[in-house]
């Protein structure tokens, strides 16, 4: 029964004329792709291009309207995920499917189809240990999964698939929750496994850099159709981008202009405890001036999330002070309004929206309770709210069925656009942003970054906390690195070197 050890050869999978219709909508139109055994194949496409639909058809979650799946050249019927698993097909999802309160070992054992009724932990642990020996990487087995960092969780997801003996693996944006360093490490390992012939990988991605660095071949989907592909070595980023987005024009990041002004935000000797309560956050001195973007880079879990919470008033701090425009600032609604402080937290649907309220209402959160004279109002003016919402929806190109739809029905990029619309309307002196582009397709990313740059050029002080180093390097005027709860390095963008930043992110400096 030793899962993962019976037959180690990778398998090849092919789709032939795959078509999937949902009512009148064609999600996949006659898509044929061939993933060779032992290859690392990338599947590129914008949001809504049909990538997820295609892999869900392969995994048996959807039943294609027409078309076949071939495994090792033989046609197979995959009515449900269980059958797919039995054929050795597995999938690592964009979101973690591990059970958070169970330990890594418990997660692995319970995921097995032949998990024993009585679990002999000594024997299972021995088995797991010897399984780990054969793997290129390992994770702590006896910690509850919710204590693992995102990178470790993603590795565990991967280990789980290998432990279950999967030989064809679909990775759905496996690095969207990882830092660049973690992503490279993980994909390097995956690449290693494909090179030994133990695994075939089909990876859904938006990130060209990862595709060029790790994949052998690529297939590109656009609006449900296969539009091109081939060997990665024969294509460059421009070719892939052209296939992926077609004729659409990309929004360029706006030019930088304007001079750096007065300090807007100063954080002085602030102390707080981190999420686990075990480590501390120590911010000695952080100053953001008008008209500059200060980027904070760092490996996830080094206190960035806590810093955001401190600045947003969600986390109490035990010492030090935070000032905005030289006045003490405790992030109340009144203060935020007075000093024109705006926030764009990560996962905006969860942290900056009331998911079931309408787009109109969500757009009005900053203004619904003030009247023209700037005083608190009692009766809500729905007419004006609706008018303002329609203007913002048009100006920020938020795609929604109607202004009255609940905001949770919007796609990720459109939720982010809506929140940006709300936060960037009116005067903005200080903008605090955390991971604004997680999981968005890259035309949305370009547009959102341009908006941030525009706010900077208009004189706002911008604090950008991001785990995406490319984003930090693209937008920032100054780069700071956070490690172990403190700011350990800072450099103006002109003198920034990726190697130096990376060294400080890793905590080896």
């Amino acid at each position: 029964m030793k899962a993962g050890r019976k037959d180690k050869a990778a398998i090849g999978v092919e789709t032939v004329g795959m078509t999937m219709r949902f009512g009148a909508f064609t999600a996949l139109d006659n898509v044929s792709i061939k993933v060779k055994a032992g290859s690392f194949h990338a599947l590129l496409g914008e949001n809504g291009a049909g990538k997820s639909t295609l892999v869900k058809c392969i995994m048996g979650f959807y039943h294609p309207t027409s078309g076949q799946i071939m495994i090792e050249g033989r046609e197979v019927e995959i009515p449900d995920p269980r059958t797919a698993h039995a054929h050795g097909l597995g999938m690592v999802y964009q979101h973690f499917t591990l059970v958070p309160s169970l330990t890594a070992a418990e997660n692995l054992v319970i995921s097995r189809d032949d998990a024993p009724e009585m679990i002999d932990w000594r024997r299972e642990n021995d088995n797991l240990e010897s399984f780990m020996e054969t793997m290129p990487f390992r994770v702590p087995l006896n910690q509850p999964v919710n204590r693992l960092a995102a990178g470790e969780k993603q590795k565990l997801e991967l280990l789980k698939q290998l432990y279950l003996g999967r030989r064809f693996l679909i990775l759905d944006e496996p690095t969207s929750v990882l830092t660049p360093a973690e992503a490279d490490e993980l994909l390097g390992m995956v690449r290693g496994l494909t090179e030994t012939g133990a695994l075939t990988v089909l990876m859904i991605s938006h990130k060209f850099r990862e595709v060029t660095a790790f994949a052998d071949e690529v297939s590109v989907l656009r609006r449900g159709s296969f539009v091109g592909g081939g060997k990665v070595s024969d294509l460059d980023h421009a070719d892939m981008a052209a296939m992926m987005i077609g004729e659409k024009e990309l929004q360029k990041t706006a030019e930088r202009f304007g001079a750096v002004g007065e300090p807007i935000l100063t954080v002085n000797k602030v102390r707080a405890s981190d999420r686990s309560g075990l480590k501390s956050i120590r911010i000695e001195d952080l100053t953001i001036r008008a008209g500059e973007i200060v980027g904070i880079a760092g490996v996830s879990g080094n206190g960035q999330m806590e810093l955001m919470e401190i600045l947003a008033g969600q986390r109490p701090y035990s010492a030090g002070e935070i000032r905005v425009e030289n006045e003490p600032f405790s992030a109340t609604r009144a203060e935020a309004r007075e000093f024109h402080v705006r926030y764009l937290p990560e996962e905006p649907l969860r942290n900056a929206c009331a998911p079931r309220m309408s787009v109109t209402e969500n757009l009005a959160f900053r203004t619904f309770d003030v009247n023209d004279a700037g005083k608190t109002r009692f009766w809500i003016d729905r007419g004006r709210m609706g008018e303002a919402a329609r203007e913002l929806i048009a100006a920020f190109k938020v795609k929604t069925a109607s202004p009255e739809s609940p905001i949770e029905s919007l796609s990720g990029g459109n939720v982010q656009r809506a929140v940006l619309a709300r936060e960037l309307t009116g005067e903005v002196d200080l903008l605090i942003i955390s991971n604004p582009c997680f999981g968005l397709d890259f035309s949305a990313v370009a547009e959102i970054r341009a908006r941030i740059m525009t706010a900077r050029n208009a004189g706002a002080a911008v604090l950008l906390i991001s785990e995406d180093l490319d984003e930090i390097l693209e937008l920032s005027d100054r780069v700071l690195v956070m490690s172990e709860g403190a700011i350990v390095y800072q450099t103006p963008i002109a003198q920034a070197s990726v190697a130096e930043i990376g060294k400080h992110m890793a905590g080896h400096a």
Partner: protein
Amino acid sequence: MNETDIGLWGVPLAIIGGAIRVSTPFLLVSVGECLTERSGRINLGLEGTLVFGAMSGYAVAYQTGSPWLGVIAAAIAGAVFGFAHGWMCKLSRVNDIAIGISLMILGMGLAFFFGKPYIQPVAPDLPSIPFGWWSDLPQVQAALRINVLFLLAIVVAILMGRMFRSTRIGLMVRVVGDSTDAARALGFHPDRVRLFSTAVGGALAGVGGAYLSLYYPGSWNEGISSGQGLMAVALVIFARWNPVSCIWAALLFGGAGALGPALQSIGVTQGYYLFYAAPYVLTLGVLIATSSTSRAMAGAPGALSITK
């Protein structure tokens, strides 16, 4: 000082004895609720289940002359209530807390309705084991007269702790309670697991009721429960969803409950009713002392509607 007067020593002794006697229904109900909550549901109807279990246990014991048949009947009645709760929660847009409260009222109402004829008759009591045989003091003997159901409850709690750690079923319940999506992805049936977890939880609550009517206080009347079924829900939180900790939580709670009668026995009558509030004050105190504003409750099942 004569042989049977042990003075102030009577207080801790009475508290220990009382703790064991009073804690048994708390323990049975909270261990059952622990299982239910670990599977991701809250059954607030256990108070009604407990009262119905007390009534049905008493009635069957009286009719058959066997207290054990009474206990079994109470367990079956409790399981039926649990099934009803589990089945109704499976329907879409049904809230487990609302269902629990209505089942609590229903259970009590049915128990009072069917229990009317059994208020007068006397049913046989459950046996207890005299662990105090080694002592000559009647107080010690009284305190250490331990009911079989208490021992059973301890065994169930320990076995359940083991089950959560090292059986497939235990892990399955934890998976279902932690993340419905993950459970589906693993091919489990969350509703089914919750249905059975709630049924077993109900059965244990029914047995807890039988303990009330068949041992301590040992008769059936409408005021038999003083909220044990509800307090047990708090005890589960207090015990951080760990069945073995439920033992200590229940004993602590039972001991605090025995404080009033124990002090009364040595002649302290001042603030007598206040001492009856001791367990509740204690629970509040402990919950406040162990709370944290910045951290989520450790050990809380992720799929539980109150922790979501």
